[in-house]
């Protein structure tokens, strides 16, 4: 018996350090987490110490963990609005000084913050607790076979059911669509966030534009759906996450076309949970994951673009960077030409107004 206890104690001594040092990262799962595993964890000095866990977004679980004092997620992969709220509420730890001192600088010594500003981003309080990951976008795509003649190439075409008959696939929440409707209504893509913030009645304009396609819409709520809808011919065009379309084109031999005009870029962050059990190890991993090299590396596995400007030249100079020796830049959302016709979603504005607009959008949808 005492032998058994000894063996047990021994085993627990051996196992304990492993168990304690495993950094748990909550992320979205699927191809996206796989790309993080390959680009961040596999290239890390101690790949075995990083464990990914799936979650469905939002801060509900994080708040429950922090408030109950039993934190199991060290790092959480979040949208910018959640980065802001989580940092303001103290669900994520303020590590601004650590990010400044430990962050991997760019080739010209840029700090992480400067590097993001070079990419056209503006400071928000999420930057105090989180490091940048990737740009992903809401983009419209279609199967060219569905349009034997002229092909749609603008937001105006997406909202024009006379010129391009057929159903459209759009999602069941407001982010991204509102901006696209503004572009279709004639607002310069780059000006959309300012118009939404400053102009009274801008939202009414967007909803009036949405009314014009309401009877020609199929709503989707999970990311794989728009691809199924377009593939099965249920709709002729759909809004989707660009990474899903990229994967279909690169890995499944599809030939979807994008409408880059009016794409809505959104950000993605990795944040440190307040009271994380493996805080220091997690911090070290964050710095590795946010280096320009890691961000560029991720583009090998998924078509989401680096949020740090200095990540892009690494990809451009490294072409062919994509899987099986294809050039990846043609599939990326943040090339200069595409950025010129894009909207960078304003997380602070959405954080302020998102709940109200989502309610209005749902009311619009249900009536």
């Amino acid at each position, binding site marked *: 018996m005492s032998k058994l206890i000894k063996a047990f104690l021994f085993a627990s001594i051996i196992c304990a350090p492993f168990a304690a040092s495993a950094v748990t990262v909550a992320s979205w799962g699927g191809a996206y987490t796989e790309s993080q595993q390959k680009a961040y964890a596999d290239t890390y000095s101690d790949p075995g110490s990083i464990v990914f866990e799936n979650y469905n977004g939002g801060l*509900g679980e994080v708040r429950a963990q922090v408030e109950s004092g039993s934190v199991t997620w060290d790092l959480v992969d979040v949208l910018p609005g959640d980065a802001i709220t989580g940092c303001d*509420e*103290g669900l994520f730890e303020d590590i601004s000084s650590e990010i400044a001192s430990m962050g991997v600088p760019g080739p010209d010594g840029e700090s992480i913050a400067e590097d993001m500003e070079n990419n056209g981003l503006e400071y928000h309080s999420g930057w105090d607790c989180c490091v940048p990951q990737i740009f992903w976008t809401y983009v419209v795509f279609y199967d060219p076979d569905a349009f034997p003649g002229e092909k749609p190439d603008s937001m105006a075409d997406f909202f024009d059911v006379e010129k391009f008959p057929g159903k459209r696939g759009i999602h069941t929440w407001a982010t991204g669509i509102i901006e696209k409707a503004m572009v279709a209504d004639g607002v310069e893509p780059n000006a959309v966030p300012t118009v939404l913030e400053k102009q009274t009645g801008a939202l009414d304009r967007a909803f009036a534009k949405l009314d014009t396609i309401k009877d020609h819409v199929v709503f989707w709520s999970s990311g794989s759906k728009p691809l199924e809808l377009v593939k*099965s011919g249920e709709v002729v065009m759909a809004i989707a996450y660009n990474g899903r379309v990229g994967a279909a084109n690169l890995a499944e031999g599809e030939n979807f076309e994008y409408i880059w005009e009016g794409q809505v870029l959104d950000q993605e962050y990795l944040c440190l949970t307040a009271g994380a059990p493996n805080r220091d190890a997690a911090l070290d991993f964050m710095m590795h994951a946010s280096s320009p090299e890691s961000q560029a590396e991720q583009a090998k596995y998924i078509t989401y673009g680096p949020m740090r400007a200095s990540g892009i030249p690494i990809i451009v100079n490294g072409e062919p960077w994509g899987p099986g020796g294809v050039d990846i830049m043609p599939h990326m959302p943040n090339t200069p030409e595409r950025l010129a016709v894009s909207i960078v979603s304003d997380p602070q504005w959405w954080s302020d107004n998102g709940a109200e607009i989502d309610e*209005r959008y749902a009311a619009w949808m249900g009536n």
Partner: protein
Amino acid sequence: MLLRSVDDSQINTVFPNTFEEYKKWDKEKDELPPEEVYKALFQELAYGEKVQVGRALTRMNYSKSGWKSLIKKTSRAIKKVVKKDEFPDSYKEFFIETNEKWADPTYWYAMGQMVNNQTSIYYWNAIDRTFDQELNVVQQEEDRRVYVQTWLKTLKVSIYVTLFCLILGFPVAHLLANLPLRYSNLLMIFVLLPFWTSLLVRTTAWIVMLQQKGVINGVLVWLGILSDDGRIAMVYNETGTLIAMTQILLPFMILPLYSVMRVIPKSHMRAAQNLGAKPVMAFWRVYLPQTIPGMSAGGLLVFVLAIGYFITPELVGGKDGKLIGSWIAYHLKTTLNWGLTAALGAILLGFMLIFYWLYNKIVGIDNIKLG
């Protein structure tokens, strides 16, 4: 968790003086609150703990969109002033100079919703009502009214699904209970196999069956019953929700019905007919009353499950797919408005209790039987 639906104490610990001064504001007389309110807010923002203020901001934004960045911008300006030790002469002017929104009384009116430790606002929000500046209950702005219609839709869908399950489940359960064992076992497997299959798989299968270019439409067009342009929209609308939910919840109706029907002696029906009842009458007067415990158990089970359902409706419901469960999940995870989450949950629980009470009045709770 239920307490959160009425609790508003967190913000009151962050802005106690501001709220105290706020209560003295005579809205009839002055358009904007008096100088003391601005001064108290200045001090509480300047010396308040960052995280506590942050949590209060999330709360404030529920009462009016825009509070969050307004306070954050103002806080930054205040911190600068405090650092330089250059306190303004008029706090009111300082605030309005920092951001003109401070001269907009609607922000101040919205603050009135929060000045007490207890609040009923979340319950009012959950039925599309809100407070005006005098804290009277008024209708929410028209284009934001979404909860009442969702409640009604949720109830409608749950009742329909329960009825359809009963209509479809009754004959199946009857067959299961009365066939010879070797046939009924096979049939039972047909009931149980889908029951054990993943919800998502079954939902996706229904999409494949029902969509416009799907199996059913395809067959109907091939047979010439439908024209190619006349394909029926059976999914991404309420029809799809009803079909998929009914199929998914059907076993919860069949199984309790079956276990009750199995023990009804066959001799009862024969005895009734021997005594001169026609088959329909014998069924109506003798068989059906004995199945009530099973119908009630199945009905309650299906109804309870249906009223909180949200994954299947979201996937197959399209524009009609947002039931109240979706909103609860949305506020729990996305807006972090746990007060509203708790209020929605409490109302849902209330519905259940009312139905339970009605059921007890009409059928009697002793009449429920799972086997």
